[in-house]
């Protein structure tokens, strides 16, 4: 079975020019373990709102690619958010949902995806056309690369094993991450503005 850490590792290089939002717990600490970047924001609480944060970013920064690494437990807390995403169809938004059928960080309690609830089906029924469920590394990397290339809202449900790191607290303070991410985007938009003002060469 796929491991989330390996999925993240396989696409890490492609995140270079994106803005990335993750959920709390294993996803946040595993992505950090691969190397933190100023363009990564880890939402260490408020389950369900990583995708909403990504939507806010995507609507306000249409020229930036936004990648959200979500989880089954978080998405189940904000299923309505799928309908909001579908309503606005941000073309620059890649929604990856790691589905380990479990609330891993609080002891591995099974979520409703373990009893058959289908997140890809829900995303599709919400109105998101480009969806996929993947269970192998090859399928994951292909689906991710395709989503990065197309200019359309994409949702990838990656079925992964319910394993994670031993601990979740890293040495990156929440507020340090928050201010660094904001500053990073300020620099990005200032650069874009400079380029636009200097005009075509």
């Amino acid at each position, binding site marked *: 079975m796929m491991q989330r850490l390996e999925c993240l590792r396989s696409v890490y290089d492609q995140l270079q020019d994106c803005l990335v939002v993750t959920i709390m717990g294993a996803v946040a600490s595993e992505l950090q373990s691969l190397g933190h970047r100023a363009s990564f924001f880890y*939402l260490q*609480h408020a389950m*369900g709102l990583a995708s909403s944060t990504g*939507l806010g970013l995507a609507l306000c920064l249409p020229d930036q690619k936004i990648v959200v690494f979500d989880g089954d437990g978080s998405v189940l807390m904000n299923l*309505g958010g799928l309908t909001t995403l579908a309503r*606005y169809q941000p073309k620059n938004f890649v929604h990856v949902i790691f589905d380990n059928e479990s609330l891993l960080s609080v002891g591995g309690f099974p979520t409703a995806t373990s009893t058959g609830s289908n997140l890809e089906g829900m995303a599709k029924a919400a109105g998101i056309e480009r969806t996929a469920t993947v269970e192998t590394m090859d399928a994951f990397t292909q689906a991710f690369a395709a989503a990065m290339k197309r200019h359309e809202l994409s949702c990838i449900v990656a079925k992964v094993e319910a394993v994670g790191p031993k601990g979740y607290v890293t040495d990156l303070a*929440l507020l340090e991450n928050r201010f660094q991410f904001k500053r990073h985007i300020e620099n990005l*938009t200032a650069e874009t503005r400079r380029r636009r003002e200097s005009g075509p060469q």
Partner: protein
Amino acid sequence: MPVSQTNSRVVYEALKKCGIGLVSALPETWLVHLIRMAEDDPEMILVRLAKEEEGVGISAGAHFAGVKSAMLMQNHGFLASVNGIVSFAQLYRMPLLMIISYRGTFGERDPWQTQGGSVTEPLLRALGIPYSFLDDPPKVEKRVAEAQTLAYSMLHPTALLLTRELMWEEA
């Protein structure tokens, strides 16, 4: 409909004046004109929500992107957003401006609004969220600007309660 279109316009212009570029909203009777004004404004990004709490995330995304935003919701939507407000807007010091229609107070005819009315202010106080009222049209613009100024200097949510006095024209 006795919802005041004139005063909705006053509130909307106040939001525009302080540079709001995105509003998230979930419709409720008192907000219909405001939401329509946002919809008709090509410069405004309007995000219609399924549940108000999403708006906390969307406003955070907008803040990261350098866009000023406001949440438009009923007080019951504020109640529904509390975890997002606490474990995102407060935990991460977000300048979140909330415009909340204050239902369930004196004059309320809908029985289902009454319980939420009586807990709105105690909850705002319990959360330490500075709040004030929009009740007098000539004061709206200044108060909206002040709520936004405080949200940014404090890096914290602030709230403005839309009162019946301002929003409802029926005696």
